């Protein structure tokens, strides 16, 4: 297997990045080539134009690096996907005029490093699975650092986020606003899923891949519910039950979530 093929099959498992030896110039060169192929393969014409604009504006703002992240980088966009970018730079590029829901995280280099050290999962995600659009070297250094330190996103951060999100989604469900409830439920269940996977040393991939990953670790029911929230319009009752189930799992953490969730 060539190194390029290795990047394509980077397993969502703790330690997998280390095995690719990102400190090697050859390996990193292959990564950048692989990223360019994905950028070309996974974007529609409209999305590609937006990415080009983000990249151009980030460069003009003096950014050190730009990464296309999230579902687009995995080729798993759905009807509810945002466009995610990680920019490393002091001045965030203006993107409000671009015709898409864009989540752009612009972090100065010190904050980018701090977020990596603190286990921010989006920052880690971008280094593991994002498509590097340009890089002065900070993304390569970050990949090297993760590999050398076996650094891993902090599951507890995700659990705290999941708690808050599940709580608010449950209250939103009582309001009768179905559209807002579905969006909140989708987000909250995704956060809970990411916590569950990270705490089992599985790297959560794109949202549309989470149901399959949940099934693989024995959480098929939660996976089915999340899949329905992404691709269907479950009834309000089903949403409330799903939120209650996820809440039970997150609250049972100390008493053994694996047993309860299965």
């Amino acid at each position, binding site marked *: 297997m060539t190194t390029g093929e290795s990047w394509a099959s980077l397993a969502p498992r703790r330690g997998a990045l280390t095995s690719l030896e990102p400190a090697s110039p050859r390996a990193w060169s292959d990564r950048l080539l692989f990223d360019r192929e994905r950028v070309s393969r996974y974007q529609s014409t409209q999305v590609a134009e937006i990415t080009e604009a983000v990249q151009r504006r980030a460069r003009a703002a003096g950014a050190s690096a730009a990464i296309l992240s999230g579902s687009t980088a995995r080729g798993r966009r759905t009807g*509810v996907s945002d466009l995610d970018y990680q920019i490393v730079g002091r001045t965030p590029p203006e993107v*409000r005029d*671009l*015709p*898409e*829901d*864009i*989540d752009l995280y612009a972090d100065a280099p010190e904050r980018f490093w701090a977020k990596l050290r603190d286990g*921010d999962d*989006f920052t880690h995600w971008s280094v593991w699975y994002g498509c590097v659009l340009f890089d002065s070297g900070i993304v390569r250094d970050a990949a090297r650092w993760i590999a050398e330190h076996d650094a891993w996103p902090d599951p507890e*951060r995700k659990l*705290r*986020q999941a708690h*808050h*999100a599940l709580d*608010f989604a449950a*209250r*939103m469900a009582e*309001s009768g*606003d179905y*559209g*807002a409830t579905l*969006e909140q439920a989708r*987000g909250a269940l995704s956060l809970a899923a990411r916590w569950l996977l990270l705490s089992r040393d599985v790297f959560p991939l794109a949202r549309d891949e989470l149901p399959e990953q949940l099934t693989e670790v024995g959480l098929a029911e939660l996976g089915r519910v999340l899949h329905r929230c992404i691709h269907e319009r479950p009834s309000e009752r089903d949403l409330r039950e799903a939120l209650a189930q996820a809440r039970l799992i997150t609250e049972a953490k100390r008493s053994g979530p694996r047993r309860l969730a299965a």
Partner: protein
Amino acid sequence: MTKAQDEASAGDLRDAVQWSFASLEAAIDALAEKHGIAIEEKHWRRAGAAAELHQNGVLPKDLSDLHELLNEERKGMFYEGEDPDLGDLTIEDALIEIETAVETAEAEAER
């Protein structure tokens, strides 16, 4: 809207921002549907609709900037655990603007 006002009165800015955003989006959705503006459950389209509804004389103010601000702060809370920062705007100011949109949507629904 009532929940947003209750949370603002109770001093819970985080929940007040969440409910304010939900109220504003619901009002924009209702008005956009009435005036044939496509939303497709996309936030950026709602921001555009808010501007268009103002240009068409439906809303007295362009609420697209307020929508974008609340959306950003909501996401910051949701994904990064940050406290909301509305800058120079107070949540009470925001609620006055949103209430106008909600009342406009209610009035149009009754026509």
